[in-house]
């Protein structure tokens, strides 16, 4: 089994990043060995569609589960089209989130939240003056 946790840093002791599309890193973790591989989230600076691009990266990483703080509607649409299990993380380290996942304590993602405020309503950072 392979799990991706959105992370503010590249190690298992980093804090889980509550942002999905604009998370700093995607940490691929093997829950049995707790071995990690960090993927730099290239889409976090995208002017628009960061959640979609991040969801594509998760699919391309061929994982079984995703733990993150907040999935926007577009990202959720993409990920719901896969068999990847989606979990709401807790505000703690990546390691702690893995422990809770293994203990069956993390909640599956139910509905999507709204797009992130302050990021141009999910349509790009800074709407007026940020087009194209």
């Amino acid at each position, binding site marked *: 089994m392979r799990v991706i946790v959105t992370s503010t840093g590249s190690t298992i002791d980093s804090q889980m990043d509550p942002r999905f599309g604009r998370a700093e890193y995607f940490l691929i973790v093997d829950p049995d060995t707790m071995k990690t591989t960090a993927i730099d989230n290239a889409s976090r600076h995208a002017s628009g*569609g960061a959640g979609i691009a991040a969801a594509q990266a998760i699919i391309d990483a061929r994982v079984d589960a995703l733990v993150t703080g907040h999935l926007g509607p577009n990202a959720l649409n993409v990920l719901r089209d896969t068999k990847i299990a989606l979990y709401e993380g807790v505000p703690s380290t990546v390691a702690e989130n893995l422990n809770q996942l293994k203990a069956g304590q993390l909640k599956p993602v139910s509905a999507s939240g709204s797009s992130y405020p302050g990021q141009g309503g999910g349509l790009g950072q800074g709407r007026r003056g940020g087009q194209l």
Partner: protein
Amino acid sequence: MRIAVLSGKGGTGKTTVAASLALVTANSQYIDCDVEEPNGFLYLTPEFSRSSVVKVRVPQIDESICTLCGACARICQFNALAVTPKRVLTFSELCHHCGACSLVCEAGAITEVDRRIGVIEADAVGFAVQGQLDVGEPVGIPILDNLKIWIDPDRTAFLDCPPGASCAVVHSLEDCDYAILVTEPTPFGLHDLEIAAELVKTMGIPAGIVLNKAGNDNSIIEIFAAEHHLPILLKIPYSRQIATDYSNGVLPVQASSEWAYLFGELAARLPGLVRG
């Protein structure tokens, strides 16, 4: 002749200046390029009797042919496509209509279909024309492209640009003969004037300044204007009367013959300024 009215900073008086000039100029047009919230109609009160829907071309996937190769999603610079194990999902509101996805689709599974993003409205004589982006649409550039079709080369067109110095402003400025930079004597006004002045200089468009909300000390703008050889074309005082009239939908040129004269004088100078 095409005259762009821009400002950088919002709320400095672009619409006042553009609509006033259009009113006092014979054989003119007022083109509202602020497609996110056109407001010139509040003052010119045109009867929009003509309209044309603006559409863009967005990808549609034929799932029976698609091989899920992912080439379309990889080429897309705007994250408007995602490939899941089951299908290709399209997010047409993010699409910039470049057509790259259909070009790279070896299976030929992508066709481009029309999608409405807004409307152009005009009065019967084509004096007042405005673009209006539909609510929720992020990209107004195709509306600006369509707006320019309504500009009559034999008339003097005043383009009321969007605020800022974004792609939409650049797009509005293209092919303009002269730019009027509207500003106010504040640090914020100066800051955004600097950006607007640099933009028109980069684009090689001659420009002058209209100083709105002018007070006793306007040196913050006057020094910049002198240093950058930008003529101050007109000063509009910081006046309660002008603000009151404006909030009632009345432009200075409609409220007083003095202002009609001053704007008329500026309009008369424009052909000479365009030629340099």
